[in-house]
């Protein structure tokens, strides 16, 4: 379409659709989107962008991907591993912008030492920038301003990449130029071993899971972020030309907010391959543990309210919400809200529960209601015990939750989730799980073909329940202490003997 034709179309559009129509409002929203952060862009980033462009024009080759690595220098081993993953890339058409964010002097020294360790070829690719201000969004915006790549991705210093991370984006860009490029991600539980000075290091404690292995779906994405940040490559023009930047006022969920502003504008091209692993830390510091629940709730509400405050353009195919892809274990069904209700059903075949025997599924209802329906594979139907982990997160309350078993002969049985063995605290008709990995376990005697757990979930924990649960846990820990247990056991046995003799 030439310029004149484009202008005529715009004029006609403005004539036809007033500001009261949805089309008119949408047009105004898009204009606002490109203008809202202009002042901040001109003040902080324009000069840097121009300098980068000037350098770019002198450079011999265009760069495909700029990878921004955010680091505070606190995770030296993580940063080393992150750089090794980049060294191993099959497509080396990338540059690295290492954004040291609020790094203390000794941490900065550590970062510089790690850079010195790299091969000459790798060192050439890396630019270290130091940012002393702001939220987690600030280093990303600076990274964008320094970026020379046609696309930009953001990778934290504790993520892991497969060797085709860059290659997959590069190939996808041929087909989805201008769109956001989105690849699949595994999640995996990790912990940091710090038992002695010489033996620190990271240790995987669970198998990789296909938690983020589904195509991007704007409607599902309205409720929560299903795309870890490194799963997406953003076209650089969004920052340079449209001046749409990460929101620096957000302490958390800055990635979700940015995706929700950009994906409806540009569209998303899906890469149906797993190119990275998102580490769920069991004992190390991360943004989930640094910021309190209040912050998460507040930002969540703020982002939802923003999304709700303007019309939304849906891409074609948006109705394919329940479509299950062949060869993909994880159902692409409607699941909503925070926390992520993505359940796992484990099977005990007589040797205990393990990551070798499980199936997973997502929530099919809108929160606070949830329903996790598991189809039990034939080989697991006679398992000695079943275990449902309704989600990975702690700090949740399950109300009126029922487990419904469907047997092979078609009969059904239902019972309250609170009747299972569990690692939560039961009070006021609700099950409260304080810690990570809530679990519900029960024994099995018949052939079960389908298991469903249904109920209501909440993260608003009444103060008294929180206190009681904490006290209960303390008491339990005390009672678990070996001396106490032995004393109690011996007193109990004596009482029982006396009672049985008398009777």
């Amino acid at each position, binding site marked *: 379409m030439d310029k004149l034709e484009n202008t005529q179309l715009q004029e006609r559009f403005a004539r036809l659709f007033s500001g009261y129509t949805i089309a008119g409002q949408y047009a105004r929203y898009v204009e606002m989107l490109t203008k809202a952060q202009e002042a901040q862009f001109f003040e902080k980033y324009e000069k840097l962008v121009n300098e980068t462009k000037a350098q770019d024009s002198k450079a011999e080759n265009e760069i495909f991907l700029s990878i921004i690595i955010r680091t505070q220098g606190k995770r030296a081993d993580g940063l080393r591993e992150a750089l090794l993953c980049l060294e*191993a890339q099959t497509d080396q058409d990338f540059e690295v912008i290492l954004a040291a964010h609020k790094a203390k002097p000794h941490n900065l020294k550590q970062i510089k030492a790690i850079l010195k360790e790299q091969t000459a070829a790798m060192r050439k690719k890396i630019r270290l920038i130091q940012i002393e201000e702001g939220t987690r969004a600030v280093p990303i915006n600076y990274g964008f301003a320094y970026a020379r790549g046609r696309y930009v991705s953001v990778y934290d210093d504790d993520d892991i990449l497969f060797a085709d991370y860059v290659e997959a984006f590069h190939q996808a860009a041929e087909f989805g130029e201008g769109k956001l490029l989105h690849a699949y991600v595994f999640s995996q539980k990790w912990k940091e071993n710090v038992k002695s000075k010489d033996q620190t290091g990271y240790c995987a404690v669970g198998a990789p899971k296909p938690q983020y292995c589904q195509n991007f779906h704007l409607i599902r994405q309205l409720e929560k972020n299903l795309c870890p940040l490194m799963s997406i490559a953003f076209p650089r023009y969004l920052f340079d030309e449209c001046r749409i930047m990460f929101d620096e006022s957000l302490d958390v969920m800055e990635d979700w907010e940015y995706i929700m502003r950009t994906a409806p504008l540009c569209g998303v091209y899906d890469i149906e391959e797993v190119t990275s692993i998102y580490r769920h830390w069991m004992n190390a510091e991360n943004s989930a543990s640094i910021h309190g629940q209040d912050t998460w709730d507040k930002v969540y509400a703020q982002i939802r309210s923003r999304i709700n405050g303007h019309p939304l353009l849906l891409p074609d195919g948006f109705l394919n919400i329940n479509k299950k892809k062949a060869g993909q274990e994880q159902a692409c069904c409607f699941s909503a809200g925070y926390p992520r209700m993505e359940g796992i059903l484990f099977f005990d075949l007589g040797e205990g529960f393990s990551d070798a025997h499980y199936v997973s599924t997502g929530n099919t209802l809108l929160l606070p209601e949830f329903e996790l329906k598991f189809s039990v594979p034939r080989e697991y139907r006679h398992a000695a015990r079943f275990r449902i982990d309704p989600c990975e997160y702690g700090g949740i309350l399950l109300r009126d939750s029922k487990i419904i078993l469907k047997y092979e002969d078609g009969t059904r049985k239902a019972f309250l989730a609170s009747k299972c063995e569990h690692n939560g605290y039961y009070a006021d008709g609700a099950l409260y799980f304080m810690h990570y990995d809530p679990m519900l376990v029960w024994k099995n005697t018949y052939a079960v073909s389908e298991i469903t757990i249904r109920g209501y979930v909440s993260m608003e924990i009444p103060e008294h329940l929180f206190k009681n649960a904490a006290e209960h846990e303390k008491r339990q820990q005390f009672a678990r202490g070996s001396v106490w247990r032995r004393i109690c056991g011996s007193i109990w046995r004596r009482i029982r003997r006396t009672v049985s003799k008398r009777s």
Partner: protein
Amino acid sequence: MEEVTLQIQSVIYQNKASDLKKAVMQAANAVRVAKEYGICISGSMVYGDASAQAVLTEEEVADIQGMLPKEFRFSYRVFGMNTGTAKGHNLLAQHSSAAYLLIMNPDILMSPSCLYELFRSMKQKDTAMAEARQTPLEHAKAYEEKTGETQWASTACVLIRTSVFRSVHGFDADTFFMYCDDVDFSWRVRLAGYKILYQPRAVVYHAKHLSIGAKWLPTCAERYYSAEAALLLSYKWSDFNRTRKLLKQYEACGGEDEKKAAAQFRKRQKEKRLPHPIDKNRKIGKFIGDEYGEMRFQISGH
């Protein structure tokens, strides 16, 4: 400055020259970084080529020599036969005068601090082997978190004292072709009274992938050789019940590859070519489920 001698060795099979050069570049960098941190490593890097046709040209060999530090010599040996990993590594280690051997797969990329961390582990008393941590998919076998002690070490990347390698007569190439040779070797090292340590800070990149459902995607050759090795390992380490169970399982409900492995085992048995059983009290060789020791987690197969 601590000084050590090392031979880095890989058995290659139809690898790309460009991938091998990348691995050499990373190894050379790891030698440089170890020196900066106080361990001066000299010695050699050896590739044993088990491919039908030589992978490297003379120019490429010269290029690789140029990539290594001056204290390191590169040699390239064409076996002229598919030796498998066990025999190939034995041949390469045969004439080494280095105090340590670093056995690694040719597709391994060392992190800069990998060698430094592995040598640090070797300082612990009675340690004969130190294994690196693989990324992006970490091996799932268990290890003692406090000490790093583990039941066996994968030879994807492992540092071994040459004296110990010789004292246990290297890998059992008569029994194992390419799988479980490392488990068997590790168990014999432990049987001789040594420790094996896992060093999670010595990271190496081993390009592996899983399916979208997070499951292994083994090739036919991998299925066949791992089934054959599983039978031989259980027999050699005196777990005859397990051997019988595996044979029954492979023959009754195994795929084509498992059936072939079972038939091959029967043939060996008939020809009296099975290994001599050791560790009859089963103090060292531990089979748990389908694994060779405890695991932290399991990745399912298709």
